[in-house]
């Protein structure tokens, strides 16, 4: 197990290096940071000077190497746009994104699994059909439209919930949380729903499909033949087996919730790293963009590791000491 995790970590570092390289290649092309940093009347010479100072004229590999060396030390440089250390910026934005992502993931998992189980168990039920059809709207509408629609209905017309921001937050050291204030809780509702809708639909349909598959397995039939109760069969035997494949896909999907928050955060002016990234893209704030991508890579690594560990927990067949590999 430990060896496996180490092996996975090794692979992950490679993955992250690749991500950094890709990110770096891209930055050469998205635009010219200098153009957005200088004022309207800065002369060509001035711009050249600034470019020189930022090291943008150095050979590509030098820039990349410098970046990697610094990144390893947790130093991502200074944001061109906000002129503050990127690491600090990211850290200050992280809690918002993580809280939003966790809330969305919880909503997506809880409702996704419940709805998935329900629709699988009641295949002919009109309510299940309705849930299925309705859930499809979640994947048939672009996120930004859902967000704007929710704002229009719940903030502008009904004035029930805030339209933007995180509400009041409480500081715990470097962590800030909106979970303990009323405005904080009210603020997270709309963005969390917007963000979770897509994943929820996905998880629900996945659970449904897997559950239907599992319910047709012999061991379920045999469990019925043993006279077990319906609940034990559906929720213990069937659900547990359903979770094995669901964990992988859902895990990967939940990892992408954090990065998928790009648009949601922008629409709701949620002060997370997603909106930080998008506003950095607009002005080609290379250090922030690079840090963001590294962060995404990191999330991927962590999520994958968790998924692997969960796999071990859930599926005994994978544990060491398996007598015979099938």
């Amino acid at each position, binding site marked *: 197990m430990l060896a496996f995790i180490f092996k996975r970590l090794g692979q992950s570092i490679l993955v992250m290096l690749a991500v950094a390289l890709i990110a770096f290649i891209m930055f050469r092309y998205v*635009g*010219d940071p200098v*153009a*957005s940093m200088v*004022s309207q009347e800065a002369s060509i010479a001035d711009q050249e000077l600034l470019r020189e100072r930022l090291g943008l004229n150095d050979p590509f590999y030098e820039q990349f190497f410098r970046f990697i060396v610094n990144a390893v030390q947790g130093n991502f440089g200074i944001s061109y746009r906000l002129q503050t250390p990127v690491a600090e910026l990211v850290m200050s934005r992280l809690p918002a994104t993580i809280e939003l992502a966790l809330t969305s993931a919880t909503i997506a998992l809880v409702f996704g699994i419940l709805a998935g189980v329900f629709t699988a168990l009641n295949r002919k039920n009109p309510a299940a059909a309705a849930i299925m059809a309705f859930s499809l709207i979640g994947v048939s509408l672009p996120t930004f439209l859902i967000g704007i629609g929710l704002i229009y209905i719940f903030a502008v017309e009904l004035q029930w919930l805030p339209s*933007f921001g995180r509400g009041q937050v409480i500081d715990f050291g470097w962590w800030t949380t909106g979970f303990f204030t009323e405005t904080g809780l009210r603020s997270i509702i709309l963005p969390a729903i917007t963000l979770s809708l897509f994943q929820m639909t996905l998880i629900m349909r996945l659970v449904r499909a897997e559950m239907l598959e599992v319910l047709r397995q012999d061991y379920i039939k045999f469990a019925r033949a043993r006279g077990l109760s319906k609940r034990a069969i559906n929720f213990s035997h069937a659900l547990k087996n359903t979770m094995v494949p669901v964990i992988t896909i859902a895990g990967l999907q939940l990892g992408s919730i954090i990065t998928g928050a790009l648009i949601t955060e922008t629409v709701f*002016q949620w*002060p997370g790293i997603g909106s930080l990234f998008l*506003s950095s893209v*607009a002005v080609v704030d290379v250090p922030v963009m690079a840090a963001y991508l590294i962060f995404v890579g990191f999330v991927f690594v962590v999520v994958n590791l968790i998924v692997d560990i969960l796999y071990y927990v859930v599926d005994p067949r994978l544990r060491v000491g398996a007598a015979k590999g099938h």
Partner: protein
Amino acid sequence: ETLRWARQSDALTLDPHSQNQGVTHTFNHHIYETLLDRDVEGNLQARLATDWYVKEGDETVWVFELREGVTFHGGEEFTAEDVVFSIERAKSENSNMRQLHADVESVAAVDDYTVEFQMAGPSPLYPNNITNTFIMDKGWSEENDLTEVQDFAAGEENFAVRNTNGTGPYVLAERDPDVRSVLTVNEDWWGDAPAVTEIVYTPIADNATRVAALLSGEVDLVQDVPVQDIERLAGTDGIKVETGPENRTIYFGYAMDDEPLISSNITDENPFANPLVREAMSLVIDREAIRQVVMRGQSLPTCVNMPPFVNGWTEELDACPAVDVERATELMAEAGYPDGFSVTLDTPNDRYVNDEAIAQAVVGMLGQIGIDVTLASRPVAQHSPLILNNETDFYLLGWGVPTFDSAYNFNDLVHTKDDEYGTYNIGLYSNPEVDEMIESLGTMTDLDARNAVIADIWAQVQEDRVFIPVHNQVLAYAMRGDMTLAVHPENQPSMTGVVFE
């Protein structure tokens, strides 16, 4: 009273000399102060300087008399030393403001409340350049190692990026870049106590969300109101919208040199180099339709590339010929392009009010005379390098004139492109006679003679159709119904000017 203020983006930094950017200046004006600033009509007015004049007997020296009894937020007294320090800092290598002070050779404190600026030559309009140069406390700055403006290469944060010590009406209480900043009133401010005692400043990037925030009562004041929402907001109970002209002209430019275009089907010559083509183009652009439909009435059509605030502006220059498609078609035929030609138009899509839509409308209009335009629309961060490298044939740009003088336009837009001049002369227009006249403007002290030269240059520019101006932008501030805030021509409203009912 607390004012919740939202606009599209945040101040980039609190270091007053690091960025020459409107949003940053607007925010900093509440904390720091300048020697002079502009009122809502665009006229210069006294701020930390009470009087300013050219030194008698020496045309190359500007004298500023300073306000007495002003203190910084930290309690330090405001003196001439601070001005000297600040101007020198603004001129220093890493400052983004240095261009504005390029003509200043040295600054000297005559006494505690008088400063003299030694210019390189006669600079009659120099005071126009200092309306965004903020004064920092010398002692505090030196203590915090702020003599130099932020240097990125150092990889370290500058203390002034997040800490302030100005003389302005508000004190920074809280700052979370891009998220939220809180300013509280400076009880010791020298001016009249403002009605707004606390400002909560929130950048909201998404247009719809920003408008929604006002509609749902979560903010009191919204800047950067999308033009299409003005009507709806104005019609909503409890909300009102203030509009007024901005110091910015939106115009189209084109490659005017003899090189063939990059993006055209005509590969052996440059159709834009043909004056007849340029005339035809200016004839088919229906500025009134753009105003009515694209801008929802929120623009001032113009045919000269400067807003009315600017010295040199006249009504005649501003006036537009009637749209005449027939004549334009004839001109195209005359020019040798009866079937038109194709070209790509580059436009930013996140910089000016409805920039993309304006460009799109013009594509349709040019289509009527056979000019087949492909529209390339990008964020300004990609648009700028493209045009600055002259990789464009035809582009849209907006130009503001912070000095309120035509020379500013000429220097950057009209003069032949070289290291010093013509940075934004993207069409590579080049006329040696005009260049000579432009260069002469810098040192002329006889304002009448100078204005005559300006008029001459404009006449030539208009005749050569160096630009196709479209309109001057109109600004709109939407706010709670019980408050009033006038529109500032440089889009730098001050919350000290807010009046509550």
